[in-house]
């Protein structure tokens, strides 16, 4: 019985396996879960995002991304790039500082943690003394200034992260030069902001929480000027020329202050409450950007009127008479402005606003009129409506690809045409080998088409099925409506919208035929839509049919949701996929399986009640089959009654307790008096309670029977042209597998193309297979005479696959949650099987046929099954002999949603959700591997620019990119030595042999 498990000892096969299979988690797509900090280096043109789980992700030009993870898994509070370096510092919520650097290794850059450091106060000092609140990396690149809760500013040397104690700026030192009448020790509590003078690196601006701002001279160690704010300080910003700075405050005001050497104490130039006069919320960050035309851009976060708009998450941009408050869909974590960082430039000339909100990244083009948003090439919010299913299609034909892109571009006209402004680094990964589409179905009834070919998961096109139905939602609910004279001038930005109007619209199954452009989509309320790609807008009536899966069986009552109401008359559809057929299952239970055969023009769908076949050419229901077991009340009543039944069972158990209480009372009641009974009852209650609490988690061991609930649930549907009835004649067939381990096979008669509209499609049940182990059937597959899986519909017609072998005998593979079983066809007799659950206790969750190519030779590839189990393991199982090839742990077994969301590609890659907004991409193949590979070159630093170090990164970066090798002092040595070692080893045959022999010996 273990013969299937014992790995083959065939050394040739073992070697081949190494050439075929390899497990890698390659890249994370989507938007980081729970972002907590944002950083930007104008020098590297890289953006960094930190998360609450301690991850740090760097993004540059599309394809340029890096990821690091803090060991502590603590929230990243702040991120600061070291000026003009490939280095950054992160501050975590445990008050630890981490220095990361980008180093080149093996031809590509890598993000590595170099040092970590926690500021320690003198013994006995409170933890607040060293709690870091503000970080300033000095432009000298030698020190960090750390503002703390105690008001002390510590100086830390780079890159060693050593405290230079003699240079600490204490509140006492600061107060020395400030008249005592308006300041005391408490004014210097908590450093809120630290900013370096833009022109003079020897001066820094220190902002204390209570409103005191001090200009500190580092050379002479004294305060040269101080500014007394009346309001609690939030943040500071220097004007480009260093003549003024701006402070923003807790009460929603901002203040401009002049800086001049002759004035020790300055009065504010201007104090504004932009959304006054009523009390406003704090302005937490502000930018003052100069432009050629003299009108500055004032950009700040917050400041909304407390009472009426206090709940908005806004960033306001004021430029002359233009003012817009961008209204975000979730809390704004932080934002930055991309502006000219060339020190020689006279003005800031801001080009873009980059805002990180909790659920999405929004970039606003400040150069184009109307300040449109920029379509981000990565960091897409996958979860803008919750993902309900996904479907992957590999190797999309160019024609279809272009049509989808063109349909998508019509939807994206409101986006700015500005090129992506965050463009640091160089993507050196090879071009993606093929065009892949990932389709995600969402709770709000939309399907999103993602370009999943490369590292950047990019939204191509969004399809909404809502238009077909009548819903309560107002279709004219435009997010961007801007009423006249509205104050504050709010404008919604972003796409995150987790609130579904109607849960019945949710998409459950998707099937796209990449050759014909037919798309079938099925949803929560039993709706099945068949769509066709149309490059033009069109208005037409959607043909509507109903499939009664219960077939008039009496005595059943559906207690779940109602079916969706359809729109009468023609409906206008935008260019793209336009529905032309709607089939609604009755009862309107969630569609659990879907199959589309574009060549035969048939769509099959299944629910917990049965399945049906629809001819979408003739728009006619071919047949329905009820799979429901008559005693299966749970499946009948629908999803809502499951809750009810739980309630019912609770009620029953309480009744049982009460009954036994009554009987115990009777028993005792004979002799005892009332108080005794009461006492006994109390004791009983206590016992019952204890019993309930102590009852351990236990599992019932029972063989599955036909009477179990949800046995009729249709788990899989499959079309095949095979030998169903006899071995001489093959015919189209439809296969369905249920939760109760039953496989139904229907023989189909599809009229030839020339009479396709004249004759009806016919179906007859040909076989019914009841697996004895009754486990849910999750996959059905027919292997041809060469034991190759049958090609997809139209694949042969497009010359993309060999025609299946119809000479040799076909085999049927049935995958249940517990085992794999191969049967002969047409006489269904068991040929071989692989038991999974009986031996390992794991169950099949996902299974797909994947093609694996050898990384050594181009001409070898084979088909295997990629299987994901409920323990989160991935197994590769050979076809047709069902031998376990290899097993990799992939997902934690507790991560149920991750396992449920997993989707395999046809070439041995896969995706699963690691959070509601992120897909992890993995690869099982040595050949098909999509992972980021990029270089960040150190742009050349203008050597004698000691006044202002923000060198022209654009030019420098371009220069270095052109020359192909920028100077990189960081890691140069290491790289050289590493390469040397590698070189030496590879050239020495003896060493190679030695390595090989030890490797083999180890095995």
């Amino acid at each position, binding site marked *: 019985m273990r013969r299937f498990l014992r790995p083959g000892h065939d050394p040739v096969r073992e070697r081949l396996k190494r050439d075929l299979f390899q497990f890698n988690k390659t890249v994370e797509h989507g938007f980081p879960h729970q972002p907590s900090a944002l950083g930007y280096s104008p020098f590297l043109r890289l953006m960094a995002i930190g998360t609450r789980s301690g991850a740090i992700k760097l993004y540059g030009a599309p394809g340029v991304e890096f990821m690091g993870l803090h060991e502590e898994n603590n929230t990243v509070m702040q991120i600061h790039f070291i000026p003009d370096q490939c280095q950054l510092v992160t501050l975590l919520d445990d008050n630890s500082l981490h220095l990361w650097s980008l180093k080149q290794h093996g031809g590509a850059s890598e993000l590595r943690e170099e040092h970590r450091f926690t500021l320690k106060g003198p013994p006995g000092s409170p933890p607040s003394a060293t709690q870091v609140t503000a970080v300033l990396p000095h432009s000298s690149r030698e020190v960090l200034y750390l503002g703390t809760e105690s008001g002390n500013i510590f100086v830390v040397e780079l890159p060693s992260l050593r405290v230079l104690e003699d240079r600490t700026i204490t509140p006492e030192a600061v107060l020395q030069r400030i008249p005592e009448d308006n300041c005391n020790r408490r004014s210097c509590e908590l450093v809120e902001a630290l900013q370096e003078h833009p022109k003079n690196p020897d001066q820094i601006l220190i902002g204390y929480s209570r409103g005191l701002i001090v200009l500190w001279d580092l050379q002479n160690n004294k305060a040269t000027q101080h500014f007394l704010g009346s309001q609690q300080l939030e943040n500071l910003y220097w004007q480009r020329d260093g003549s003024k700075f701006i402070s923003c405050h807790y009460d929603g005001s901002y203040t401009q202050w002049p800086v001049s050497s002759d004035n020790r104490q300055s009065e504010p130039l201007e104090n504004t409450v932009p959304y006054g006069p009523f009390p406003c919320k704090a302005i937490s960050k502000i930018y003052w950007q100069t432009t050629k035309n003299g009108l500055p851009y004032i950009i700040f976060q917050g400041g909304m009127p407390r009472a009426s708009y206090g709940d908005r998450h806004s960033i306001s941009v004021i430029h002359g008479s233009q003012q817009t408050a961008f209204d975000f869909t979730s809390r704004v974590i932080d934002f930055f402005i991309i502006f000219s960082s060339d020190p020689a430039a006279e003005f800031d000339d801001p080009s873009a606003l980059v805002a990180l909100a909790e659920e999405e990244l929004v970039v606003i083009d400040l150069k184009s009129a109307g300040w449109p948003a920029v379509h981000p090439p990565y960091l897409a919010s996958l979860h803008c409506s919750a993902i309900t299913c996904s479907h992957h299609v590999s190797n999309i034909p160019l024609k279809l690809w272009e049509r989808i892109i063109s349909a998508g571009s019509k939807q994206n006209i409101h986006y700015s045409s500005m090129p992506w402004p965050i463009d640091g680094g160089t993507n050196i990964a090879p071009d993606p080998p093929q065009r892949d589409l990932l389709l995600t179905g969402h709770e709000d009834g939309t399907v999103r088409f993602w370009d999943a070919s490369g590292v950047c998961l990019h939204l191509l096109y969004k399809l909404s099925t809502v238009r077909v139905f009548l819903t309560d939602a107002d279709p004219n609910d435009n997010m961007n409506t801007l009423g006249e004279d509205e104050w504050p001038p709010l404008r919604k930005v972003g796409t995150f919208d987790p609130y579904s109007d109607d849960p019945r619209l949710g998409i459950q199954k998707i099937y796209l035929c990449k050759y014909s452009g037919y798309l079938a989509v099925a949803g929560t309320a039993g709706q099945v839509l068949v769509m066709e790609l149309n490059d033009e807008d069109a208005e037409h009536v959607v043909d509507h049919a109903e499939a009664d899966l219960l*077939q008039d069986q009496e005595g059943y009552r559906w207690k779940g949701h109602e079916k969706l109401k359809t729109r009468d008359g023609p409906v206008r559809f935008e260019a793209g996929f336009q529905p032309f057929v709607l089939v609604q299952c009755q009862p309107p239970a969630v569609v659990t399986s879907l199959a589309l055969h574009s060549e035969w023009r048939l769509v099959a769908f299944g629910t917990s009640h049965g399945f049906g076949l629809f001819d979408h050419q003739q728009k006619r229901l071919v047949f329905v089959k009820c799979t429901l077991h008559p005693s299966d009340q749970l499946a009948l009543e629908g999803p809502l009654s499951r809750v009810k039944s739980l309630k019912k069972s609770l009620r029953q158990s309480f009744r049982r307790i009460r009954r036994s209480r009554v009987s115990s009372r009777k028993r005792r009641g004979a002799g005892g008096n009332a108080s005794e009974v009461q006492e006994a009852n109390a004791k009983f209650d206590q016992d019952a309670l204890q019993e309930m609490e102590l009852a351990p988690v236990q599992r019932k061991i029972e*063989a599955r029977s036909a009477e179990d609930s949800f046995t009729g649930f249709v788990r899989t549907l499959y079309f095949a042209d095979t030998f169903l009835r006899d071995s001489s004649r093959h015919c189209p067939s439809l296969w369905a597998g249920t939760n109760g381990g039953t496989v139904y096979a229907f023989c189909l008669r599809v009229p030839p193309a020339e009479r396709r509209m004249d004759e009806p499609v016919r179906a*007859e049940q040909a076989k019914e297979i009841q697996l004895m182990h009754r486990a849910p059937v999750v996959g059905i597959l027919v292997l041809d005479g060469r034991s190759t899986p049958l090609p997809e519909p139209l694949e042969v017609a497009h010359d993309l696959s060999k025609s299946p072998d119809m000479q040799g005998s076909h085999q049927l593979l049935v995958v249940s949650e517990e085992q794999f079983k191969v049967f002969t066809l047409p006489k269904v007799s068991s040929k071989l099987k692989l038991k999974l659950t*009986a031996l390992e206790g794991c169950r099949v969750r996902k299974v797909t046929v994947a093609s694996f190519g050898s990384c050594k030779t181009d001409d070898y590839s084979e088909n295997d099954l990629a299987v994901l189990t409920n323990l989160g393991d991935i197994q590769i199982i050979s076809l047709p002999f069902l031998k376990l090839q290899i097993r990799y742990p992939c997902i934690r077994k507790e991560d149920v949603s991750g396992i449920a969301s997993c989707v395999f590609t046809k070439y041995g890659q896969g995706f699963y959700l690691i959070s509601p907004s992120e897909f992890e991409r993995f690869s099982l193949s040595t050949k098909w591997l999509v992972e980021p590979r990029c270089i960040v070159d150190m742009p050349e630093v203008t050597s004698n620019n000691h006044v202002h170090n923000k060198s022209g990164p654009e030019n420098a970066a371009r220069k270095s990119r052109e020359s192909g090798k920028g100077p990189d002092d960081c890691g140069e040595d290491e790289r050289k030595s590493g390469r040397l070692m590698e070189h030496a080893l590879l050239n020495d045959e003896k060493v190679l042999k030695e390595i090989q022999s030890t490797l083999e010996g180890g095995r």
Partner: protein
Amino acid sequence: QFGAEFRRFSLDRYKPGKFEDFYKLILHIHHIANLEVMIGYADVHGDLLPINNDDNFFKAVSSAHPLLRVFIQRQDEVDYSNFGTNTLSRKKKALVTLRNDNLRRRPHINISMPHDFRPVSSIIDVDILPETHRRVRLYRHGCEKPLGFYIRDGTSVRVTPHGLEKVPGIFISRMVPGGLAESTGLLAVNDEVLEVNGIEVAGKTLDQVTDMMIANSHNLIITVKPANQRNNIIRSSRMSGSSGQSTDSTASHHSLPTSHVLQNFHPDEMESDEEADIVIEGGLEPQHIPKLHSLTSSSLSRINGSSLGHRLQRDLVLNNNSGRESNGNIHKLLSSLKTDPRHSLVIPRGGIEEDGTVITL
């Protein structure tokens, strides 16, 4: 009437009375007054000894601690060589929770494996397992009786080179009255489950073990360490099976490869009695097909597509309904045929042809 039933009744320990009365009492209780039976009991060593006169009846009652297990067999089926051997202890184990004045007796029929009964359980691999363990095979012949037990997480104590160590384990938590597991008497609440069909459960979660047991439910072999070690097999080489020794043998034994452990156990045997999937060659009744065709073609001319679909569909409903009925019959027939797994399922073809549905296996 010799099913797996047992009854309890009490006797006065100190005045047991005469054997004759006891014999009559037993016949009366079991309503088998007209049968010649042989009465036996289990002594302290777990040996089956006969009760056929006042003396050994008295001895049996006085030696009952805490209860006396009495076995009744048909006179003509008694295998006298069984007496005094260990046969009994392999099959039975006492319940410790009974009150002292209760006596339990159980008519038992499996001792000589009569042909008109089929086994519901057996103990296997006694010769290779440590005596503290018991490997139980539950036969489920597609029968209606549920397996009927529950398992839970728990901790067990193992002897390791570093001394005693608490390790997580899987235990039987509950028996369903009337279930297969209970009726065998070989499994009890708090028995620790060590293996399922030869595969160790150590390191597996409760859900994994549950899935494994259910996946093997047609032929479940579980190795347990009984909570009650009093009824263990006493091997001749050892004086007594004490629970103290058991733990270290657990540790050492588990390092053995599983295939070795299962040596007594024919893979073929396992394959043969499991998973004969039922294949029903479906299809509509020959008479129905022309009817269907005529209806379809005649309707085509006058009715549009969708209502035609409804008609066709209803027609299919009709056929499917009749098909299901016959399928049901076949299921029943099959399950009755499947009662003995060793019988190959040779079915006369014509015998079950109903409504055009044919079974091939």
